């Protein structure tokens, strides 16, 4: 009489490229949404964006071998799937899904930003945010000429955005010609396209970029011509990705108003997995104003600021830290919103009591310090923050009666500004440092896996024993019993069993004894030896056409950036030492 309860459920997230910001954004929000549910695990199957037209260059071949990882889905016993494959829509949507991802159909699934007939999709309301931006530009800034740096023809969203853009111009009776539009591949390599667009329209007052990525080459082009985004030409992008805030000047962008794609997708998927009927969702969007297009998300008056209204302080926070509201937050972490409220309300309170003690001032400084230490700058850009708090500062300076309190408040404000800028530069430096460290470690790995005739030959064992040198703290290496070969045009037939060679948990390596390694591919996430995390990325380990196994990584920013490279290096090392 044995009864089995429900096991941990595993959700798969299939997307095209984990290292681009748009994907990172989705992974992050899906990951946080999954974490909010008990007994749920996320597995990210990361492919690489691949054009439909098959090309025969190295890059395309590499992509095709890499994308064989999609087929793992059928082996993994996933309970639900979230797919975000924007390029498969538009052209001939359904047939592509059938052909390439036939097995995806078996489990409940949600498509993100992907129009597929007869399936549940989640996507942005392209119209609302874009309209808000154009309304503002035309009515407030008096702009009469706008251009658009568009996207690929096979991308549904890009096409829709173009259509809406033209419509909006039409509503204001502004001229539109095809000269004012230039399509691009939606990546940062679109410099030539940006160049052409500006060449044709040197007098443009504003440029709408189909996504945040293409704004990077556009910025370059503008700067080369001595034009400053935000001052000479208004620029705004789409998706409101994290890096849009780190651009100089920060890029205004249209993004989710409240719920993000990932959150909604998880919500719908869970409902679907529980057997409920769900409907496709279209998420509202809005314009997030930044320096390249200054835009107040909320109107607030000086009077309001000084009244110490709770709602007002929270609104101000949302405005300053515009990325905060759309992300879900772990309740283990420091609640930045509440912290912001704490010190701002105490500073404002000093205006009412007309006094501030030295102790209070020190405490405020401590709180501000904690605020920035805990990554407040992840949710905004320095320019935005400085501008917002300057308004408050000016208002307080005018209204403050006690000179002492005023001095202290001003010191708090300047401390905030310092921290804002320091945090940003610190991040840049730290980024370089991480890169350097990672490089050093990877080199260490290579050295240890080199073969010399007078010492023991390098085998899988050697590689497994050096996995901690790859520089990623939580990974697991799984190898097939025999490497399998990718044959062009044929679906890869993955074996049902795989060997868990080693795992690295919080930097600590554990090589498994040979007899304990073998397990079913379907059960790999039940292995207790894996790193303790609730989301994994699965990246194939291959070299050329030969697929050796899989690399499991804890899904985070770093593995998104470096995971593929590490997997490639593993594949290369295995290939060099492959006796067959």
């Amino acid at each position: 009489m044995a009864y089995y309860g429900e096991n941990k459920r595993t959700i798969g997230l299939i997307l095209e490229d984990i290292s681009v910001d748009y994907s990172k954004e989705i992974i992050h929000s899906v990951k946080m949404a999954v974490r909010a549910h008990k007994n749920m695990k996320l597995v990210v199957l990361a492919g690489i964006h691949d054009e439909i037209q098959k090309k025969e260059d190295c890059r395309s071949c590499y992509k095709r071998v890499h994308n064989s990882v999609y087929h793992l889905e059928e082996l993994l016993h996933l309970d639900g799937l979230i797919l975000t494959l924007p390029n498969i829509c538009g052209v001939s949507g359904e047939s592509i899904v059938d052909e390439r991802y036939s097995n995806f159909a078996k489990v409940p699934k949600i498509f993100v930003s992907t129009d597929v007939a007869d399936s549940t999709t989640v996507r942005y309301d392209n119209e609302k945010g874009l309209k808000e931006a154009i309304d503002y530009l035309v009515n407030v800034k008096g702009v009469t000429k706008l251009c658009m740096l568009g996207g690929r023809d096979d991308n549904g969203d890009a096409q829709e955005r173009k259509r809406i853009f033209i419509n909006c111009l039409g509503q204001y009776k502004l001229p539109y010609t095809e000269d004012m539009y230039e399509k691009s591949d939606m990546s940062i390599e679109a410099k030539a396209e940006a160049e052409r667009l500006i060449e044709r329209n040197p007098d443009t007052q504003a440029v709408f970029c189909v996504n945040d990525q293409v704004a990077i080459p556009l910025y370059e082009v503008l700067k080369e011509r001595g034009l400053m985004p935000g001052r000479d030409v208004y620029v705004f992008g789409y998706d409101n990705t994290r890096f849009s805030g780190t651009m100089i000047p920060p890029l205004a962008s249209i993004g989710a108003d409240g719920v993000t794609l990932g959150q909604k997708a998880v919500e719908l998927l869970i409902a679907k997995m529980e057997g409920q009927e769900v409907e496709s969702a279209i998420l509202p969007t809005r314009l997030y104003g930044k320096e390249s297009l200054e835009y107040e998300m909320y109107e607030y008056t000086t009077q309001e600021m000084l009244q110490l209204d709770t709602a007002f302080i929270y609104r101000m926070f949302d405005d300053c830290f515009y990325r905060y509201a759309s992300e879900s937050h772990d309740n283990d972490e420091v609640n930045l919103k509440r912290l912001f409220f704490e010190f701002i309300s105490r500073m404002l309170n000093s205006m009412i009591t007309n006094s501030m003690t030295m102790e209070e001032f020190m405490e405020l400084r401590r709180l501000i310090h904690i605020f920035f230490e805990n990554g407040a700058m992840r949710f905004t850009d320095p320019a935005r923050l400085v501008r917002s708090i300057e308004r408050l500062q000016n208002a307080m300076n005018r209204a403050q009666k006690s000179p002492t309190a005023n001095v202290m408040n001003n010191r708090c404000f300047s401390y905030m500004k310092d921290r804002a800028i320091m945090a940003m530069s610190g991040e840049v430096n730290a980024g370089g440092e991480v890169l350097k460290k990672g490089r050093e470690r990877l080199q260490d790995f290579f050295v240890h896996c080199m073969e010399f005739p007078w010492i023991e030959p390098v085998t899988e064992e050697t590689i497994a024993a050096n996995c901690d040198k790859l520089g990623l703290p939580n990974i697991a290496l799984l190898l097939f019993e025999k490497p399998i070969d990718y044959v062009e045009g044929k679906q890869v037939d993955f074996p049902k069993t795989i060997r868990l060679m080693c795992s690295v948990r919080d930097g600590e390596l554990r090589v498994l004894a040979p007899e304990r390694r073998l397990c079913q591919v379907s059960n790999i996430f039940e292995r207790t030896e894996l790193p303790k995390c609730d989301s994994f990325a699965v990246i194939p380990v291959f070299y050329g056409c030969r697929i050796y196994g899989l690399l499991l990584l804890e899904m985070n920013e770093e593995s998104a950036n470096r995971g593929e490279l590490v997997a490639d290096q593993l594949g290369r090392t295995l290939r060099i030492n492959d006796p067959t």
Partner: protein
Amino acid sequence: MFTWNYQYISKARLESALKQLMLQTEKGDILIRIHTAIHLEDEAVELARFIKTIVPAAKIVGTSTSAVISRGKLLMNQCIISVTQMDGGHVQTTIIPTRDEDTGLPITVDNVCHTAQSRVLSEDTKLILTFLAGNYLDIQSMVERSNECKPGIQMIGGIVNASEIGQQKECKAGFVFDEYGWTSSGLLMAAIGGEKVESFSTYATGVQAIGEEYEITDAFGNCILGLGGIDASKEYCTGIGEALHNRPELTNLFPLVYSDMPDIPVPIRYVENVSLAEMFPEEDPANAKLFAGRPDLDKNTKKDYIVTNHSVTAGRKFRRAFIYDRKIISDNRVMFNHIENFEKAETIFGYAGAARLLIYSNCAKWELSAYENSNICGCVTEGEIVFANGRNTLADCAFAVSVIGEKSQTQECNPYAFSHTDSLAADNQALLGYLMEIESYAGTGSNRSSSMRSFVRDCELKLFYSENDDIPNEAAMNMDIKLKGYDRICLISVLDTSSMKIVFDEATVQLTRRAYLGKCADFARKHNYRMYALDDWNVAIGATSFTVSLQKMARDMEFLQRELFSSSESLIAIVPTFCVINGCTVENLKPVYNSARLLMMSKNTQFYVCDTRSFQSDEESIRERYRMVNLINYAIAHDKIIPYYQGIHDNATGTIHHYESLMRLVDEEGNVYSPYRFLDVARMYGLLYDSASSIMIHKVCERFRNAEGVSVSINLGIRDIKNRDTMEYLYDFLSEVKHPENFVFEILENEDVDAYEVIDSFVDRIHQLGGKISIDDFGSGYSNLQHVVGINSDFLKIDGSIIRKCCESREAEHLITLIMGWRQLSNQKVRIVAEFVENEEIQEMLMKYGIDYSQGYLFSRPTPDIAV
């Protein structure tokens, strides 16, 4: 001296009681006190007269009251009669009017004192019971004057009331009486004296004075007009806050005290929007006289006033004060010590303030409970006359006790009552609640005067810090959690401190404790945490979720724990357990901590981090649980527990060897539920499981009672085997039935390991009766192999999880080999059954290993209908 206390029930009962006493007038005077909460004025006098007829020599005094005190209890709606027989001592009683009948004016203090002196006082008077009925503004001066007239004579008593507690607007309803009559404006006195008589009077208030002094600069009658030169009502209000307007009862929490007697509260009432003319109607000649003395006053403007119950005079100094539990406790302990050590404790008089019952009702009960077995007798009064530092004075909200006697005697008291102080903490909530309210205003930045700020700060210093260590206490923690967002709390406790005391001396224990607290406090200060001392060895460390991440907090706490472990040699080694709780509220902290403690204990960990959310079941699962409870109840009541049967396939013959019976429940709509849906719930509600299981067993047994050539297996849990009714039924059944060998009992082995003995005897018994035994789910959980092998079972069922995987996993296959090999080696007759046989592949594997029986979907699904 001897005192008897009677509750008045009827005249007849009283008569017989009094007669039994055999009171002896020649030995000494007899004092009879009556405190009644049930008699009207004339009835009371009638009662006094009645007593007089039985005990003609008695000196009778009586008062009305709202509740009487007898044997350490407060009793509503009763009348208590206390009879004191003196041993040579004497008693003088009198009632002195306080108002001139003709003029309507109050009689002067001099006159009253003079009368009292002449009527009741004698050279050796020791204690005067004094009760005032009605409004007599000069009561304070009267009591003060008595100190001058006859220094050293103690007084006890107060202003009598009659109304229900709570309706104490005016105390004019109270009256005093003796056998000659009653009055509602008079002073009742009973002076007890005698050569050998000694008495001791004391009191407890629990009042703590704080802050600076205010001089009364202007007063009118019992109305304080000016404090320190400013309007008294405004000044009083600024200390306590505007909330006073809506909640006049706050005056009881924050009384004023005369600065020369800082622990005696002066009753204060805050009256709003009245004119002096309304408060002091001029029809009353006394008031007219008052107004005549103060022509400068504006009689008619309506404003707020603070009034007390006696005339106040300009020039005296007040301080602010408040009442709180710790002071009440310490006051009472001191008082109790005095009383317990008083040699001639023959009789105890006790009088408690009505205001005390109103705001600190638990406290009033608590402090009385220490005198539970004594002959304490008294009543509730409005204001008390207490004897403080050698002087009598008028107090409010006090508990006054006098102990008196002529020869050595002890009263049995109950000092242990003092250790139950929990109820007092509840009383304190009102005060704490109010202070929190004030604190929460501070957060919103409302403008608060500095005087109020400092007053509140002073209150908090007393209320929110532990008694000896100057560390914030639990109340402070609760306030921080509630108001300041402290929602990450680490609770630190040291286990087994009582055993420490057996081995080590108190000094070492205390030293260790101080070192422990000191380390925690240092750590907290250094790392910007808040530390709270909950009780002796329990400490909490708090942080706000907006300043410290959970990870950092856990790391810091681990560091602190290591620091605490590494104690020096001179100290006792302690094991502090740490439990970091995330997302606390005042409500969930305790329950979550308790569950966490259980978990820590079972896992034997000393450090644990948990989230309150993970301890609270989500709504969905609670709903599901109750749905299942309802379902089970429904099934039991409506005969919807249905046995299903699944065939067990004999691999040698290819036929069904026997059936396993499986429980199914059917709901109102006919949906069938299998046990994995409801079994956990049924086990949780143990009796539900018992009933359902018992019905199931009966049904299966009866169905197969007369069956020939077909056997059935029945699942039994340890709970069933321990269930006497079920076992008796089974034993009886097997001994009656024709083919007991047709019945197989499947025992679930992984439930409860300490029941081996019970299982063994059950197995033996079944075998004796001819039944058969099967071990269910073999290989799941951590069953004790040695024991399982020891059970002389007929069948062994390999756990489904092993069978399911046997084609995929070599380990599972090895286990099957192991089991079959074991059978061969040990030459056991036991037959092996495999369940969850789902496909041919598995069946082939099983055949290869020579498994005797297979059960699973490959062969048949469970069904209610089988041909038997």
